[in-house]
């Protein structure tokens, strides 16, 4: 029974994390479309402005990724600290 409760809690937490990441993604897209992507592209746009646009877009994306990675790390280690996870055998999975 506790296994069912644990599974439910884990799924719920990851679903909440997913909702947060989704919300952040929509925010990132909004910021990028307002501040980074021009409404109309002028053929005479200065090079510096183009560099600024691409640089800002990359910065926003990196902040987004670091944001949810930190959030996930914080959540995972909190759960593991509370007693989740098990020391086990040497066999393991491959991440790619």
């Amino acid at each position: 029974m506790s296994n069912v409760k644990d599974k439910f809690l884990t799924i719920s937490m990851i679903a909440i994390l997913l909702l947060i990441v989704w919300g952040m993604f929509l925010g990132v897209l909004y910021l990028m479309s307002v501040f980074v992507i021009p409404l109309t592209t002028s053929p005479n746009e200065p090079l510096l402005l183009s560099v600024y646009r691409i640089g800002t877009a990359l910065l926003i994306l990196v902040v987004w990724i670091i944001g949810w990675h930190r959030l996930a790390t914080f959540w995972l280690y909190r759960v593991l600290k509370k007693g989740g996870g098990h020391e086990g055998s040497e066999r393991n999975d491959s991440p790619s």
Partner: protein
Amino acid sequence: MSAIPLLFASFILSALLSYASVPFIKSLARKAKLFGVDVHKSWRPLVPKIGGISVFIGVTVSVLVTSFLFNMVDNRVLAFIISTELAAIVGLWEDFRELNPVLKPVLLALAGLPIVFMGAYYPYPNLPFVGKRMLTILYPILVPIAFTIVTNAVNSMDVLNGSMTFTSIVAVFTIFLIALTNGNAPPAYLCTALLGSLIVFAYYNKYPARLFSGNVGSLYVGASLTSIAIIGSMEIALLITILPQIMNEFHIIYSMKGFRSAKNLSERPVLVENDMLSANPSKKAPITLVRMLTSRCSLSEKEVVKMLVMISIVSATLALITEFLIIK
């Protein structure tokens, strides 16, 4: 309504072709000694690891035949076939001999170039809240980047029996629903071809797996998803549908401090004991979705895959909400 025979034909044909090609692929794997050890089982079976070729054969032949029969041959269909084939070749290459972890993303980016050079894209993506935006210069640069990100994301999910296959089925079905609702026939029938092959492959790849997809399969499926989303202007929906895969990919890259081979890991993310998976408590282990799922209690491989599918369904729902309520 006239698209229904096309959708049905591409689905059935790809499923039949994939099913028919499985014995040939198994014998090919035996001859080339291409087996993978299923490390999550106590009896550690050797499983043929190039099963993804069946998906590749099923989809490619089905798309070629149905597009000729239904007069659907155009630059988008041809770009889809060439781009996905290039990704499959990269995957097959890696199945034979491990690629340099930095070279692999570069090669996958190159696989996206046929989409760019054949003009199979529409550089006016529909963005949430703000509508269409003109990206005539930036879009062709983003296509190869998207190829690398999505193919690697799908590849990163291929860690348990059926995990990549079932989560990809959820993603393809979501994209199919959006294409169908928008009345966009070419991406819809590419989706049905992919669904047909994936459903057949899932039968062989589900627990206990008799076939692994290999890099050829996961990279092919990732490239197919990217191509379909670009051809059908469903980029944002695809990115949201595969958010769990993307999160998994970036967690791994971030934890490993860049593109590195998984073989160089000092600590593995998940420990296995009596066929049960549990999260490795060590801070040196990379963060993965499977590690997060097994953090609270030990789970069987089957249970973890079921939970991954549930998470995929949540993200698919978010993609549909975004596409129909926020973008429109």
